[in-house]
């Protein structure tokens, strides 16, 4: 099957965010809204395991939700007291995020193009990188997100855990563990683990990396 071009993918997501319901638009298109709600909760719980269960109103954690879609994770993490920046390339998704509010600050940006004067305690990109079709853009995106993680901070990536790439459909290119680990090791990030979502036979899970250098 031929995969979509970057421009086609961008249009696809913008249209999908306008067309589909809140969770289905950024979640799993095959699941209904209720199932997607469970899926979101499962991943949110896994994010909590990685980000930790502490917060401080005076000295909050600063998080980046890269590819935030309509902002579910950003809003939920902001409810925990964290300061969250959400970025997404879709104008429609960011417009909806801004309408919903809820604490996070949103900007329209690609993953490779986000520039910040601040580093983050944790950068997460939940099921977004495998929708970047172009390998060079994928590399730029991963390296840019890594560069935004502070010393001791975490980079959390949703993708599959196998040792090779795999194409699902026309708009999903999963990169293998053999691509993530060397790339991020060279960026000074230590691989902690990969844990599958264990949700309805999904092959995807979270990679967790910690900046050590």
């Amino acid at each position, binding site marked *: 099957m031929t995969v979509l071009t970057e421009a086609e993918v961008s249009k696809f997501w913008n249209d999908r965010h306008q067309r589909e319901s809140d969770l289905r638009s950024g979640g799993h298109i095959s699941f209904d809204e209720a199932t997607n709600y469970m899926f979101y909760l499962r991943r949110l719980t896994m994010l909590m395991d990685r980000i930790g269960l502490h917060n401080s109103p005076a000295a909050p954690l*600063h998080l980046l939700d890269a590819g935030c879609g309509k902002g579910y994770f950003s809003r939920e993490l902001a409810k925990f007291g964290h*300061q969250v920046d959400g970025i997404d390339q879709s104008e429609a998704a960011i417009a909806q995020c801004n309408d919903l509010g809820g604490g996070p600050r949103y900007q329209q940006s690609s993953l490779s193009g986000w520039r910040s004067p601040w580093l983050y305690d944790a950068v997460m990109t939940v099921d977004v990188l495998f929708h970047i079709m172009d390998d060079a853009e994928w590399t730029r995106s991963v390296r840019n997100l890594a560069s*935004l993680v502070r010393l001791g901070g975490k980079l959390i990536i949703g993708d599959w855990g196998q040792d090779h790439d795999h194409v699902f459909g026309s708009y999903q290119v999963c990169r293998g563990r053999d691509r993530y680990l060397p790339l991020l090791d060279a960026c000074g990030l230590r691989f902690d683990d990969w844990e599958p979502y264990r949700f309805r036979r999904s092959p995807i899970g979270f990679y967790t990396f910690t900046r050590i250098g």
Partner: protein
Amino acid sequence: MLIRELLPLFDDVTTIVEVSATGEVLREQLRAPEETAYRPYAPGEKMDADTLLVGFVGPRQGTQVEAEAVAPALRDLPVGGRAMILLGWPLLDLPYHQVLEELVTAGCQVLQVIPIDNAAGQGAHCAVVAARVDRLIPLRTHLSDAPIVADGDEPDLRALLRLTGEYVFGDLLSRPLRLKLAEAGDRLKEQDKRIRQLEKELATTVAKADARVERARNDVANLRASTTFRVGNTVVQGARKPGKAIVSVPVGLVRIWRKRGAADETPGQKI
């Protein structure tokens, strides 16, 4: 510090290698001495310790480059080799993460980041001074304008404890400041939104008032053009000057009668 004051901070520089492509612009801004060779970076070239690598990283396409474009040259620096990278972003919005990534990956230590005066004209807001190292070397401070060397004594344990301690406390203090800044940004955004809304409401109110004034002007014009007004006006003028009224009133009435067609053609509502 002015941009032309940067090069004198480096001792024993015989060659300057530029990794960005500003042509002669950066050379002129730096006021590179005639006796110092100045050339563009050639990938894979060997540089010695007397070479200073310079580059201009920033958002302006053409004269400024992305951080990753500087990476190969940084890796070609020998241990002890120095680099000065000008950054084209304002300090308050400085996205240093990519430059830092490339520096650390290439084994370079950031010694100092120097703010530059007159940034608006030259586009350089600060200069990152770094050196390729195989051990930690002392940081420079904002108080120092001594020559930049890459071979100082390695910081002892006390200095490292100070360094990490300052980092930890600096990090703690930066969190509420970052929060305050974000909240101030939110307030500013909200105020901007409110101002735009008020401007819109004001424009609508002014437009409505203008329309009312225009309607009132038309009404007055129609009133003045009406036969009723003119007959009344002739009679009133006659009453004011009774001596002339015996002539002026009949003449005025006849004139109104003669021009009745023209009066009827007056645009607007007849009264």
